[in-house]
């Protein structure tokens, strides 16, 4: 009787710790997703952050780690946008569900590839198995001005139907380049 009570307490402790961990993550996610800072505010923070720590630690290097980290990440991002031609102008996500093994997030993404602009919404389901994380896209919705181009609108709806986000981006790149080339050629002849 004693030892089963002991075990019951231990089980409850484990499940409570798990629950607390998930709640804390949820709190962090909600904070991250609901607030927004402008570029100026961020710049101001970078400056005041540097001053704060230079005062405290007499000019030590290490607290600028955050600034260096941010710079490195932004350099990577701007390289990728330049290299692939895909520019993201806005991105927001909301965590819909989060359990130990499963996370579902709803993403809203807008941007352009050369002169073609797009707006996407999709749900991303990530499942943790023992070796890896698997990712599946559902409820993909693509908004693109495809006006005159029936091939493009056919492509967009077939991509939406199968959740083919990867194919969309890969094809977008090559289509946009061709489209841009064609546009420039027409302008040249005007």
């Amino acid at each position, binding site marked *: 009787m004693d030892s089963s009570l002991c075990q019951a307490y231990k089980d409850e402790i484990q499940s409570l710790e798990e629950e*607390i961990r998930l709640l804390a993550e949820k709190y962090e996610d909600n904070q991250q997703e609901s607030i927004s800072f402008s570029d100026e505010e961020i710049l101001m923070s970078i400056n005041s952050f540097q001053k704060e720590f230079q005062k405290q630690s007499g000019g030590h290097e290490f607290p600028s780690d955050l600034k260096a980290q941010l710079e490195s990440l932004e350099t990577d991002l701007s390289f990728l946008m330049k290299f*692939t031609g895909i520019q993201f102008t806005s991105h927001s996500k909301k965590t819909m569900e989060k359990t130990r093994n499963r996370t579902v997030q709803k993403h809203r993404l807008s941007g352009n590839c050369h002169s073609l602009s797009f707006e996407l919404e999709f749900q991303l389901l990530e499942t943790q198995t023992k070796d890896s994380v698997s990712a599946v896209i559902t409820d993909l919705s693509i908004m693109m001005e495809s006006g005159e181009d029936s091939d493009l609108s056919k492509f967009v709806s077939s991509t939406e139907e199968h959740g083919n986000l990867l194919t969309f981006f*890969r094809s977008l*790149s090559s289509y946009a380049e061709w489209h841009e080339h064609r546009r420039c050629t027409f302008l040249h002849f005007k």
Partner: protein
Amino acid sequence: GVFAHLEMLEARAREADLKQTAMEQRKEQLARLEARVQELRQQRDELRAKVELQEQGAEKEGVMSDPAQHSAQAVLEWKIRKVKSTLQVFYLTGISGKLSKQGVCFCISTAYEGTYLDSYYLNLLTEPQVRIHRHSIPVFIPLEQIAKKYLQTDIRRFLSILSDHLNAYVGRRYQADQLQEHFSDRIEGTMQRNSLCNLLVFNYNPSSKSKTFPFNARLLYGDLCCSLPTEVVVSCAPAAPAALAETAAAHSDLFRRLALHKAFGSFGSARECVD
């Protein structure tokens, strides 16, 4: 006599003592565990209330946060998380990467429809010329051929073609895996396939209720950038009835047009036995 008796009494007393101590220890342990449970329950309840408050507050859309409330460090951390999150989206586009001191490390991701599958990395050095330093591309993908043709002149094209190969390979493998996993009762044993997954051979029965596998299928994917076969041969025994031969021809056409696991999915579950 007396001594033996005394020893026995001593032993009994020690035993009783030990039992008493053990019982007290157990009591203490239970008390500690109980206290810990209470502490965690309270922590959990407080967090729950905090999150609920957050979610109620979030119903008012477009509430901008007052930057003065947040420390400079918190703002920076927020921004870092945001940039990381956008970088993660690049993973979904198929080409992502990270700059390094001597070049770039690209990550090529693959997917079949909405399911993301393996990703491969390619570490490029840029000085004195662009060259491949390290990579995780499987050996049966013609990396050197593609690099020889495009790496020096057009890196984007090089990556795009490599991505085509990888996505097609992963797509073919996915179809074969799905077939093996979800329709194993309609296939005889394990299907034969090569590492590039561009040659598949198996015996099958479109109906799941039969014990014989009258059809043999041989699928050749001649275009390495494509996940549909270029050549399909479906055959049955030479003495088989004409109806079977017709079905074989129909399937041959089907496998050329439809992904393998979807083709099997279209056979349905309540078909007449093909014997």
